[in-house]
């Protein structure tokens, strides 16, 4: 319950945060909402020597209509994404996914940037932004760069973020009226998904990503390709696990996960096609 001791610094700007993390390197971690990092630290599964609190970095909490996409500041809380009129209108799949993160107390504090940077394949937002073809804007000592979500997730809790880089914005393409569905299968509502599916579908085009089906969020490209080629929903859904490599754990064996994935992908596509 009591974390190991650490040093703590507050950054008031992205530039300051980056300069601090450059000083301390891999001993330092960013602290945004803290709802991915602090639970690990309380069990002493993570023991960073330095926490750089970016929770007060100005102007990183926003949701803007930027024309073809929504620009969401990395420090935007899940609750704000969940309730935003703009997100409901242009990226309702994301609003729905955000409403499923943890519970309402968690959603008041956790941030979309924190969740994505943490890169947990069992989290809802990495898979959802992946399905939506999002781009993540990242800032480092040499300036900003954009990383497509499909290139961002490298391994379990590993992303393309360098040690001295900070996620600053998430760009989510507008859904333009596409049908969508978020299927989160768990035993208790507050739990991580045993398997989750984020899907959208419009006129033969689909985007499907899987939660907790591998060491990273999984883009189910076989499913999307099959839909594009005119396959039926159930035939496409049968391919749900093609890109996945699910683990067996306390809640589910890997073969049950694979079965669940095809059921949930089918249900998601059916709902998204109504």
């Amino acid at each position, binding site marked *: 319950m009591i974390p190991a001791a650490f040093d703590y610094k507050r950054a008031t700007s992205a530039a300051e945060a980056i300069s601090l993390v450059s000083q301390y390197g891999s001993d330092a971690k960013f602290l945004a909402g803290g709802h991915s990092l602090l639970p690990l630290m309380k069990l002493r599964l993570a023991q960073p020597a330095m926490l750089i609190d970016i929770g007060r970095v100005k102007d990183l909490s926003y949701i803007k209509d930027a024309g073809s996409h929504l620009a969401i500041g990395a420090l935007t809380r899940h609750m704000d994404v969940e309730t935003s009129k703009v997100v409901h209108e242009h990226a309702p799949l994301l609003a729905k996914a955000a409403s499923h993160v943890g519970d309402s107390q968690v959603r008041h504090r956790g941030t979309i940037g924190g969740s994505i940077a943490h890169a947990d394949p069992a989290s809802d937002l990495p898979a959802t932004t992946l399905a939506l073809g999002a781009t993540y804007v990242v800032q480092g000592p040499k300036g900003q760069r954009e990383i497509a979500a499909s290139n961002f997730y490298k391994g379990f809790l590993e992303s393309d973020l360098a040690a001295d880089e900070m996620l600053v914005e998430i760009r989510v393409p507008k859904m333009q009226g596409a049908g969508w569905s978020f299927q989160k299968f768990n035993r208790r509502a*507050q739990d991580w998904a045993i398997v989750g599916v984020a899907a959208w579908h419009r006129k033969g085009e689909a985007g499907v990503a899987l939660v907790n089906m591998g060491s990273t969020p999984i883009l189910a490209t076989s499913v999307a390709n099959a839909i594009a080629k005119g396959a039926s929903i159930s035939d496409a859904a049968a391919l749900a696990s093609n890109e996945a490599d699910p683990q067996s754990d306390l*809640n589910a064996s890997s073969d049950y996960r694979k079965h669940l994935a095809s059921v949930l992908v089918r249900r998601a596509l059916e709902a998204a096609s109504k």
Partner: protein
Amino acid sequence: MTITENKPTSVIGTRLLRREDPPLLTGEAKFTNDLNIPGALHLTVLRSPYAHAKIKSIDVSAALKIAGVIAIYTGKDLQSSWASPMPCAWPVTPDMKNPAHYPLAIDKVNYVGDGVAAILATNEVASRDALDAIDVQYEPLKAVVDLEDSLSDKNIIHTELGTNKSYTWPLLVEETPGCVEEAFKKAKYKVKERYVQQRLIPMAMEPRAIVAVPQPFGGDITLYSSTQIPHILKVMTALTLGIPEQQVRVVAPSVGGGFGSKLDVYAEELLCMALSRKHNAPVRWVEERSENTQATIQGRGQIQHVELAADENGKITAVRVRIVGDMGAYLQLVTPGVPLLGAFLYAGVYDIPKAYDFECTSVFTNLTPTDAYRGAGRPEATYAIEMAMEALARAMKIDSFELRKRNYIKKEQFPYVAFSGLTYDSGDHLLAAEKAAKMTDLAGVRAQQKKQNVPGATKLLGLGMSSYFEMCGLAPSRVLASLNYSAGGWEAATVRVLPTNKVQVITGTSPHGQGHETSWAMIAAEKLGVAPEDVDVLHSDTAISALGLDTYGSRSLPVGGVAIALACDKVIEKAKTIAAHQLECATEDLQFANGTFSVKGSPDRALPLAAIAFGAFTAHNLPEGCEPNLEAQVSYDPPNFSWPFGTHMCVVEVDTETGAVEILKYIAVDDCGNQINPLIVEGQVHGGVVQGIAQALFEEAVYDEDGNLKSSNLAEYLVPAACDVPSITTGHTITPSPTNQLGVKGIGEAGTIGAAPTVISAIIDALSGLGVTTMAMPASPQTVWKTIQAATSGGKK
């Protein structure tokens, strides 16, 4: 005495709001870890990460250097602190094997969580940091995790015992020798079922906490502990520490739930006491949740083989049961007795002849010790008989409710002397069952089921039920003697009317959420004709309530509440003699109603209790031989167990594609005799039912083959939240107990006892069309789905 159902009276039977609530709601109430004890040292315990290992060495040098750390003790260091090993109060058989168990392991650890070192520091943070700095070298040994493996004695845990078996306990009741085997040979129908009662983690929301405070001189020590058993703890800690009992005072502050997990004598209590005396300073300890799951006792843990023999009408002719009980690594306070508390109940609510063959063998495992958890042996028994009845109904191809009706003990048969010789004092199983059926709209559900459960349907409707009764109100002391239980089953009460007509009730019960203060005040108020607000209820402090046997086993009302009523009777008797003297009449001429003694036929010749109380205090005009003051003390030993009963029913929908189960409705009809406060009774049923539902669908202490607990915190061990469980529709019947004047039976565990088989039988009913006849607990989505696959041979429909 005539027992009548409660008529609405001024207080008893009303939904009086609880006086316990305001301090709990405002945060003023003090739980043990809220107590501010200046100068307290903080204890943490370093625990073994291995289920079974030799301790080769313990190096505390680095930890001692941490600022704030005062001392670190190993098991060897503290050997001289103990006059005896940790107590087990229930040596169930004369040859029961009980390995010596000390607060810290000495040469060997026997479960993950077994304490290895005690760290004392000036603050909690330092004591926590020190845990990471202690270097223990272990030599791991093969862990014995599986019950059947333990039984085989291939790897023996406590080598000094020569076996993993702690005891074998039989209960064979035969009208004629060999009649059980005969009945099975002759049976028209028989079933043989195997069930597993998975280990559960009680998860009271308040983790255990302790503060031991030595008095500045004289050797006295006060133990504040989040405990259900202050009185038992006082005696047991004094004995284990080898100090005079009168030096120990135990106080249970507000306690945040227990469910049996705080009915124990724990290593940390003894460590806090011993170290506080050693250091002459208060010592406090609180467990973290992921520590609680391993360092606090777990519940259940059985493999059951149940057989029923029945005639052509489905009337049961014999019952045969073999159980293997999982003790865990050591015997805690009542560990060995828990499976036996259900031993008498494997024929459930059914009328059977004397043909009952029960045997339980309990074994050690390299896992957390088990002990009482809500129901303690009776949920396990009820599950077995109710699920076996379902199996029998399937074998006979008749409706299971119909089968039950053919076997229920009938109302006219009560008081019913069972095969065991125990007398079930009252009951009406058919009445409760029919009420449940009506409330469930049985016919409507079956009609809906017919419409919905067509071939190819992926959402299947199921109806489940269970009829239970339970044996609680622990307990008649001489029956406990025959079971070799080391303590009695009485309860004590003192009732005192103070000069200003305020009433003090001192009870030996120890509430932790059950509303005793409100309920006992209602009993005394009713008896004495005072307002409940004028009754003060004192409890949970052995300096104030000197006598008692505390709270567990649904005993507090049928034993403790009745003791209060009896003490009130004594007070009224004494008051009557004073009134007669002061009114100059005979005691037989007096009646007592609404708090006033009056002469029968001359209502103007009257004296209120208030006047009597004041007169007893002044002692100016008391009858010859009458002592001043108006109080009475009673120690009440109940003549029998009490036997609440009921029928639960539920409707589930199973998603066959995922295995997910949703409970659409849950109906609980329970009979706890007369109800003192229906609000509190319903609350106990709600809570008990949800724990039973959680057992059926969500919870299991999962261990890997090396004895590591995989579900070791509240993220992994699935205590459900509000959205994960249904609302509970409660009904009741009332058959007052004839063995006590209040007609009460206790209700604390009944909900849990009825629920699990209700839910599991519903799932099986939903899937019966797919050929499913069994379902393991917890019926997780994966388990349900895999069971469906196995029944349909994995083929697609």
